[in-house]
């Protein structure tokens, strides 16, 4: 008789993931207006902690530590959060079209950011992320409140519909404000399409605690996401407190997304495309899908950011444009070439 074992991802998958993370991060730090060799990058990184490593020029060190590394890590963290939030939403709503912006996060953040951009009297660097974060959380709270009271939490469709309604209202308000202030149109659009221009480590340090906690919570819920896949009714008869578990997952995914978009703007497609590509490769179990989404969401966004910085250098392209232009066709290619395209 076969021994009882869990169906887990083989170890080499995790090995490949680790290599992918290291390679893309190194690449992200190497590439830019000034090319830095991978050896120098690692010398700079390790030089902080060890002695006897050949030292590199101070200018290169500054570029690595103050410009490239914070930006690459920010891209990784944001991509990781968006992909895992999308993955978690798809699982808990059993809806393949769910993305991190499902419950109005994007519209709320957009409205918050627009309000700050049009108001020239405030310090944008500080208030813009705060306003985007507050707007996103307010929108999700409103959606949750309306969706739950509609059918007392029995149907997740009510919640999604409430999200659509809240997003429509907030987007309308945002458009209205934008129309009144056409002078800042460009700035508003650049935010909405997403951008990762950083100034040192401050953004990363501000959002890291939120994203670490939310990612940890989502990871702990990965088995529960599998239980959701049999439907609410049966999940409940199997002993899952459905509303409570869904509530916790929504809060973690929304909070993490809000933190991410507060500094990155509304980067689209990562949350929907990354999990679906991984589904075609690793299957639909969230036990592996969620951690893989975290890893490859990060990898994907670091690569997209490299392109955003280099294709039209010295000009930067909005990273949201890159994720859509590259992500969508690549996704369609993977979808078309997989015979058993089991998208749930």
């Amino acid at each position, binding site marked *: *008789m*076969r021994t*009882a*074992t*869990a*169906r887990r991802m083989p170890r080499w998958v995790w090995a490949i993931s680790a290599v992918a993370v290291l390679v893309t991060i190194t690449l992200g730090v190497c590439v830019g207006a000034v090319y830095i060799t991978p050896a120098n990058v690692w010398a700079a990184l390790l030089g902080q902690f060890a002695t006897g490593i050949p030292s590199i020029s101070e200018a290169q060190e500054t570029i690595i530590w103050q410009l490239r590394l914070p930006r690459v890590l920010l891209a990784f963290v944001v991509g990781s959060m968006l992909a895992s939030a999308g993955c978690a939403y798809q699982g808990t709503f059993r809806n393949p079209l769910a993305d991190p912006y499902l419950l109005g996060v994007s519209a709320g953040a957009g409205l918050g950011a627009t309000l700050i951009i049009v108001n020239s009297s405030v310090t944008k660097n500080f208030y813009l992320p705060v306003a985007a974060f507050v707007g996103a959380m307010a929108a999700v709270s409103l959606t949750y409140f309306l969706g739950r009271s509609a059918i007392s939490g029995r149907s997740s469709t009510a919640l999604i519909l409430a999200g659509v309604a809240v997003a429509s209202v907030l987007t309308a308000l945002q458009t209205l404000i934008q129309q009144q202030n056409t002078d800042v149109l460009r700035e508003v659009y650049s935010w909405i399409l997403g951008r990762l221009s950083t100034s040192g480590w401050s953004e990363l340090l501000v959002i890291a605690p939120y994203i670490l906690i939310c990612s940890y919570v989502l990871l*702990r*819920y990965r*088995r*529960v996401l*599998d*239980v959701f*896949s*049999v*439907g609410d*009714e*049966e*999940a*409940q*008869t*199997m*002993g*899952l*407190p*459905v509303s409570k*578990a869904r509530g916790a997952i929504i809060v973690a995914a929304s909070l993490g997304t809000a933190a991410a978009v507060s500094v990155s703007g509304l980067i689209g497609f990562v949350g929907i495309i990354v999990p679906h590509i991984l*589904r075609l490769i690793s*299957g*639909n*179990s969230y036990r592996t899908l969620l951690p893989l989404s975290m890893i490859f969401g990060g990898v994907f966004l670091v690569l997209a950011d490299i392109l955003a910085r280099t294709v039209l250098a010295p000009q930067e392209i909005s990273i949201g444009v890159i994720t859509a232009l590259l992500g969508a066709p690549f996704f369609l290619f993977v979808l078309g070439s997989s015979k*058993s395209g*089991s*998208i*749930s």
Partner: protein
Amino acid sequence: MTKLTVNKLRVDLGGKSVISDVSIAISLGDWICVIGPNGAGKSSLLKAIAGILPSGGDMFIDDVNLRGLSHRDRACWIAYVAQDPIMPPGMTVFNYVLLGRTAHLKMLASESHVDFEVAHFVITELGLEAFLDRDVMTLSGGERQRVAIARALTQASPIVLLDEPTTALDVGYQQEVLELIDRLCKEKKIAVISTMHDLTVAGLYPKELLLLHHGKIYDAGKPDQVLTRENIAEVYGANIEIISTNGMLAVIPVRLQT
């Protein structure tokens, strides 16, 4: 002996009474089958007992009041398989069956080797070893039903509710699933409450039938007492003949004019 007692159960949906005054008592090892025409409230009755439809009335297992239990504690007593269980695409049979252990795990815990052993044991018992790594979406109707029953058994609850376990199945698969349920009742001493569409099949296996009419119990008892010409004419509005051979009943529809 452990016994589920449902007393004066009622279910209202949208201001309309769907189930009223239904009382059931079932001991371990027994099989009660709920019959009745479309809309009589068969599925609602099972859902109310499973706790997924809000209902009134008392529900006890011995002296444990089911009303006071959390979802998880309740699931340790009662397992439920829906009429057309959702099969998550891309999930293996083993992982699907393993989900049945949810009630025995803290919400954020992962399975231990005990849970794997239980899932394997049930899969072996039900002769599903060959399907272990198969995607549940690729299973046939009969295999799906057996895999869903395996998931319910992995839950290790003494009471199992099965909504129309054989409705979508061909006669061969039907027999396979019914024999399986019958064997589980007798060998594993679980109590089964099922609903069923086919009256002849309903008369064949279960120990007791419960005939629902407009959400109330119209008649209950041994199959030969419930499956009578008069009962079926009254409740289903159908003209039938009951044929009894070697203690087995067959319900034969009769043409109104020949």
